[in-house]
Structure formats: C-alpha cells, structure tokens
C-alpha cells in the first residue's frame, strides 16, 4: 500500500487551503461530502482584516484588530496566536482576491468592509452575504487547477496512532462500499464543528464533530470545549443562520414591546456587541417574558430599504422567504440564539501541531486558541485561511525530516475494530436517532446559553445513561455502501463523547467567561480560572487538566461594551 505524505480530512476552507500550501507533496484530501458542499460555504457575513479601506477606518490597525480579538475572547485567547491571526489577515484577503473571490466593492474599486460585532471600526470584508460560498468556490477552483487528489464521500472513522505518532486514517468509501485505509506520514484534521450535538444549531446536518471525537479517542487532548458559541440571530423554527452582517448593515433587535433592548446590555455597541453578550441579552428578554409568543425576538431590517437589503443581504432575504414565508423588506425576522460555532477543539499549538507527532489540526475543529472564550464574527473565515496556510507550511517543514515508517499492523487493527463495530451494530436493538435526539435535547436545554450546577450535573448523568444505551444501537443494515443509517449509528458514540466533554468542562468551570455563563457563578474569575481546559480520554470519561494562557501582550481587563 502506498504511503501518502499528507492525508487531510475535511474539504472545507481550512483543509483546502492547507492542501494548496502542501501541493507538490503526495497529498490526499478526504471529505465526507463533495468539498463544495462543505459547511464553510454557509458562512455569510464576512472575513476580517485591517485593510483600512473605509473612510471611517483610516486609523484601523493590525494592533486594534488583535486587541478586539483578545478582548472579544474575554482574555482567554493565546495572545501571540491572536496577533498572528490578525497580522496575516490583510495578505490573506489580498491573496483570495487575486485568486478571484468576488468581494463586494466600494465605488473606488477597493474591497468594501462592513461593521461587525465587538469592534468599533468596519473591517469585515464581504461578498454580499454569501462570503463563505465565494471563498470556498475560489479555493476549490485552485484545487482543480493544481489537480490535487480529492476523495469525496469518504467517512473517516479512526486516526491510527502508535508510539506517540500518527500512521494514517481508516474509514468508509461510501460509493465503493468498502473500508479503506490511508497510510500517511502526517495527518491533518480540518473537520469543522460539532453543531449537531445540539438540537438548535445553525450548522449543516453533517457537522457531527466526529473529527474531534476521533482525535480524542486516539489520545489527543481537546481544549476548551465548554466554550460553545450561540449565534444571537438564528431564524425561529429552523435555526438557519441570519448573519451578524444584518446588524452590521443597521438592523435592529426588538422585543415584544418594540424596544431596542440592547441599550440595557451594551449601550455603546448595541446590536454589534460581541455575540455572547447579544445571545445572553436575547435569551434574558425571552425568559423575562418580553419575547414573542413561541420564544423569539425580532430583527428588523425594514428601515434599511429594499435596495440595500437586496444588494447587501440577498441571501438573508431568500432564507426569510423560503423558510419563514416573510418578505424581509416588509416584516421583521423572528430570531433567537442557536448553537453556531465551537471555540474549543483539538489541542494544537500555533503551528497546528498536536502532542501526537505528525497529527495536525486547523480550522474550527482545532483550538490554538485564537478565539478564547468567545469568537468575533468574521474571525472564523479568517482563521480557516490563515491557519490552513500556516499549518500546511508547518507540515511541509515537518515532512522535510525523514519519516520513521508506517505501522501497518496498527492500521490493520483499526480496520478490524471498525468491522467489529459494524457487526455489533447489525445485531443491536435500539434506535440510534432516538438516542441522538435525546442527547440534543440535553445539550440545548441544560448546556446552553445559561448554565448552572444542577442542570449540568443532571445533563452529565443523562449523557452517561445515553452513552450506555448507545452500546446497543442497531443499524438496519451492515452494508457499507451509501448507508446513512449506519453512519448515524457509528457516529453516535462520538457525538456523545463530545457532549460529555462539553458538559464536564462546563460543570468544572465555576466562573462565567465569554460564551460560558454560569448563573450560579456569574462573574469572571481571573484568579482561579484564567486558564485553558484540557480534556483527555480516561477510563470513566474525560479527565480534565488546565493550562496557562499566553498573556504576553495585554493585561486582562473588565470586558465592557
């Protein structure tokens, strides 16, 4: 069996950007869907960089972007990593533009930038409200130009690790209906987020977070998973994302009495406060009985006018029409918070390297950490491209050293494990989707925007019970070819792993910071809790340890907007 230099799992922005950085080597990109279907494409609002293109932003700077990011993170971000993200931003935008991204423009031909949450200066570059779509198509065009090998509809199930280093991955080729192995000198996971562990999420249905769980089971530590971003404005009913850009363009949030309630929570930045603050504000309004019946508030775009809405937010207008039967020019949108992004993820350093030699991660599935306890809008698209490239370059340097040989026996063992698991599923009794849906209820109800001890303990107990039940789930068929039910059953224990890590991390962290808010410990506690949570797999569930934050540039301060 041939050995690849690099196997990249995940065909979204981060994975593809890394592949481009690694071209020339024997690179294989494995994706569970065609790369153009990756969830990166659903990103709407924009990508940040201190380009200073807007008249109001002439004194913007990389430094300001860095500070906004660190403050936005509630001072949990590793500051050198955050600075790197922001330093690399302008060249990243220009590179994507040179490659053909159709950014929206100013009259003078320069890339337009819109205001976004958590910053006083407009630095979010955008392509209407379909920025992710345009970036992903641009990158995938380059992948085809360089003829980089892409294996579509491969679901990776195991990371093969032995002797403290990586040997490859094993998974299912959905079209061929067979278990396949990829022996590799290095592996990169760029598998995205885990939104579907929650009931209410903006994420694509394929975002099960299995990549993070596979790494966890493979012995890799997972960092800060309790920090879950709830996007303030998801469409009531479907939780489809309504971009922060709608507020950036001037949209107003109103409760049932018609008040712009953000004046009570963030008087200066109002609707453009960081996401965790707006999400808590909306949730509070709804709990206090000031929401609309059914449990939502309104995002009013009417005053923006027909032209501006159709020019800057055409995607939103279509989403409102298709999924809420509303014309956003005539009626305000019903919105409420929903799970959206994972600040936490696979524990890696600024090069994307984990503690397992040759195993790297980048993008949403990784935690460097650049976003700390809360991510600013526009910084995720940026992260995928910046760290996609930097991690790819780091892997290139890693591969310049001679390899140490592949442990084929370990790969064979991983393959055998999967075969065993599939056999067991064919003989199981319980319905996987039922357990999955109950897990989602637990997370959304008790590990959401507001958390407290009793709810978290109860959540942990219920997840443990569900994990026990999950051992008995059944798949209707053991056939490997395009068998969605089998994949659901195989991924269920992985999702439960993530649910447990999130829950344990949230229970242990007796403070409130960024997106993690404990009603029973409502203040930030820098004395005890200015540290990252590091979770590793143990006999009875995740073992938690802690690690200091890189505070080399700025003193943590009170976070007010």
């Amino acid at each position: 069996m041939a050995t690849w230099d690099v196997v990249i799992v995940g065909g979204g922005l981060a994975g593809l950007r890394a592949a481009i950085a690694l071209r020339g080597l024997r690179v294989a990109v494995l994706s569970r869907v065609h790369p153009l279907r990756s969830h990166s494409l659903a990103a709407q609002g924009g990508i940040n960089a201190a380009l200073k293109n807007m008249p109001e932003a002439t004194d913007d700077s990389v430094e300001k972007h860095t500070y906004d990011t660190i403050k936005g993170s509630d001072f949990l971000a590793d500051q050198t990593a955050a600075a790197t993200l922001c330093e690399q931003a302008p060249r990243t935008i220009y590179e994507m533009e040179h490659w053909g991204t159709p950014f929206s423009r100013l009259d003078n031909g320069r890339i337009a930038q819109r205001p976004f949450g958590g910053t006083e200066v407009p630095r979010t570059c955008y392509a209407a409200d379909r920025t992710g779509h345009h970036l992903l198509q641009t990158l995938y065009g380059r992948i085809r130009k360089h003829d980089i090998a892409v294996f579509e509809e491969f679901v990776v199930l195991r990371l093969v690790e032995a002797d403290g280093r990586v040997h490859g991955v094993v998974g299912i080729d959905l079209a061929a209906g067979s278990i396949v192995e990829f022996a590799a000198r290095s592996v990169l996971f760029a598998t995205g987020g885990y939104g579907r562990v929650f009931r209410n999420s903006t994420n694509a249905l394929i975002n099960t977070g299995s990549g993070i769980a596979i790494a966890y089971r493979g012995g890799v530590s997972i960092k800060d998973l309790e920090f879950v971003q709830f996007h303030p404005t998801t469409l009531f009913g479907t939780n489809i994302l309504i971009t922060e850009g709608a507020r950036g363009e001037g949209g107003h949030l109103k409760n049932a009495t018609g008040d712009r309630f953000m004046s009570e929570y963030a008087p200066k930045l109002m609707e453009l406060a960081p996401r965790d603050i707006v999400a808590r504000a909306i949730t509070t309004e709804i709990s206090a009985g000031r929401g609309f019946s059914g449990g939502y508030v309104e995002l009013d775009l009417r005053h923006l006018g027909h032209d501006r809405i159709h020019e800057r937010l055409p995607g939103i207008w279509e989403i409102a029409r298709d999924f809420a039967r509303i014309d956003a020019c005539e009626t305000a949108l019903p919105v409420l918070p929903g799970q959206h992004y994972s600040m936490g993820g696979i524990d890696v350093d600024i090069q994307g390297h984990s503690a397992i030699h040759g195993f790297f991660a980048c993008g949403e599935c990784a935690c460097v950490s650049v976003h700390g306890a809360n991510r600013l809008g526009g910084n995720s698209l940026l992260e995928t491209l910046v760290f996609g490239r930097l991690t790819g370059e780091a892997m290139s340097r890693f591969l310049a050293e001679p390899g140490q040989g592949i442990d084929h026996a370990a790969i064979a063992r991983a393959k055998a494990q999967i075969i065993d698991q599939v056999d067991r599923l064919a003989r199981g009794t319980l319905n996987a989707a039922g357990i999955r849906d109950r897990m989602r209820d637990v997370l959304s109800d008790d590990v959401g925007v507001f958390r407290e001890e009793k709810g978290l303990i109860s959540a942990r107990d219920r997840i443990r019970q569900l994990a026990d039940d999950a051992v008995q789930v059944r798949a209707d068929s053991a056939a490997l070819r395009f068998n969605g039910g089998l994949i659901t059953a195989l991924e269920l224990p992985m999702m439960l792993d993530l649910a447990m890590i999130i829950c344990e991390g949230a229970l242990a962290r007796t403070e409130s910071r960024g997106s993690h808010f404990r009603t029973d410990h409502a203040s930030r506690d820098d004395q005890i809790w200015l540290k990252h949570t590091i979770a590793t797999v143990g006999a009875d569930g995740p073992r938690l340890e802690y690690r200091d934050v890189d505070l080399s540039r700025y003193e943590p301060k009170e976070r007010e907007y």
Partner: protein
Amino acid sequence: MVLLAGTYYPEGYMSVTESLIHVLRSDETDSAEPAFVSFAVPHDNDMTVLAALLWIQDNLDGTLALRYSCRGAVCGSCAMVINGDITLACRIHLRNLPAEVFVEPLPNLPIQKDLVVDMTRFWESWARVRPYLIRFDDMGEKETLQTPAQLDRIEQFINCMLCACCYSACPLQQRNPEYMGPAALAALARFENDSRDRRGGDSLKEVSHDSGIWGCRSVFRCIDVCPRNVRPADGIAELRTRALKDLLGRRKR
C-alpha cells in the same frame, strides 16, 4: 398562495398530518429496475421533504440513500425531483404538497443508489472550463481594483452552487450526454466576464462546438429551475456573441 417550483398552490393545500412519500429506489450494483417504495411520514406544519426523507432514514429504513448537508438551500446537495419538479428538497415544505409525494433522483445523470446520482460528468464539464481566475499580470500587493459595475457583470453567475438542477432539466443534455451543460458554460461566462481574468481567445475556441456553447437550443429550462436565479442560457448566448466576434476579428481584448 405559494409558488412552488413554478406552480401556484393555495396556502396550506391539503392540510395533513401524515404524508405518503413514494421514493424511486434502485442500486446500480444490482440488476433490478428502479421501483417506487412507499413510506408514511407523520409530520407537523414545518417538515420539509428533506426532513421527511431523513426521518425515513432514521426510523424506517437506514439504507435510503440521499445527499444532503446544509438544509438551508445554500449547498446544493439535495437536488432531486419532487412531484415532477426539479428542485432542492430542503426548501420544499410538505404542507405545500399533496398528501402523496413522489420523489425521484435527478435525470440526465446515472443513478448510483436511490436518490444519489453519479455527478462525475457534471464535475468534469465544470473543471474543463478552468473555473479559476487566469491572469499573468503582476498583481501587486493589494487588491486589484474592480468597480461595482464590473462586479455586476458577473453577479448572477457567481451565485451558482453547482447543484445540477439545470443540467438535469436541460433536454439537450438528455439528448447529448457529451453536452457540457448549462452550469459549466455559465461558469465560463462568469470568468470571461470577470474584469480581472485574462484567459484569451483559446478558451472560447475550446467550447465552440456542438457539445459546448453551440449545443444550447434556448429552451430555457435552466433558467426555470435554478434555485439561485442564475440564467445560464443568457451566459451561453453572451459567450456565442463573443465567439462570433473573435471569429470575425472584431473583439477588443
């Protein structure tokens, strides 16, 4: 009134709490002819066809094969035929359909299994037009300037999500499997019209044949079915004009 894939239905047409979904099932690896299999799906007012199919997969038959991802009509995965209309399953609501719904895979592409079709030819056509910016100039450090008016020239083409609805709706595609199809040619129009692109006349020459830009017969089904309001036929017409001008030596480059 609700406009569903070109047909008007009264709001809440056939208000039901259970739908009978008939799915055309088959597998290229076995010799049986495709046949409809029926599933009863209980639902509330908000269930989409995609959600119904996934409910079937979760509760009735885990082997029902279909493609999906975003569920929000932006990724293009779930294109299929619903009661004869080519559309995205995630944005068709059961409340707007009759109580019996017939679901079939996209035409013009070989069926792999159930609703999963082999998109290889579609992707190959697209790749053939070199769907990336081609330029040889020194781009400098900052962005290449492009005015809103210049961006407007490619506006409709850039929104294509390569869902293959147009490819499946096109009768010329059905007649000629070698035809490159509306999406690939619209993608070429997107790059030809991008003020930054410098691909030169050869690129049009390469598609100036009966399976390229001259394959279109202006039936406009592509425009009818596109969920993103892309007008591939317009793009093809525009490419033909350019090709003719090139032929006559009339085009300024």
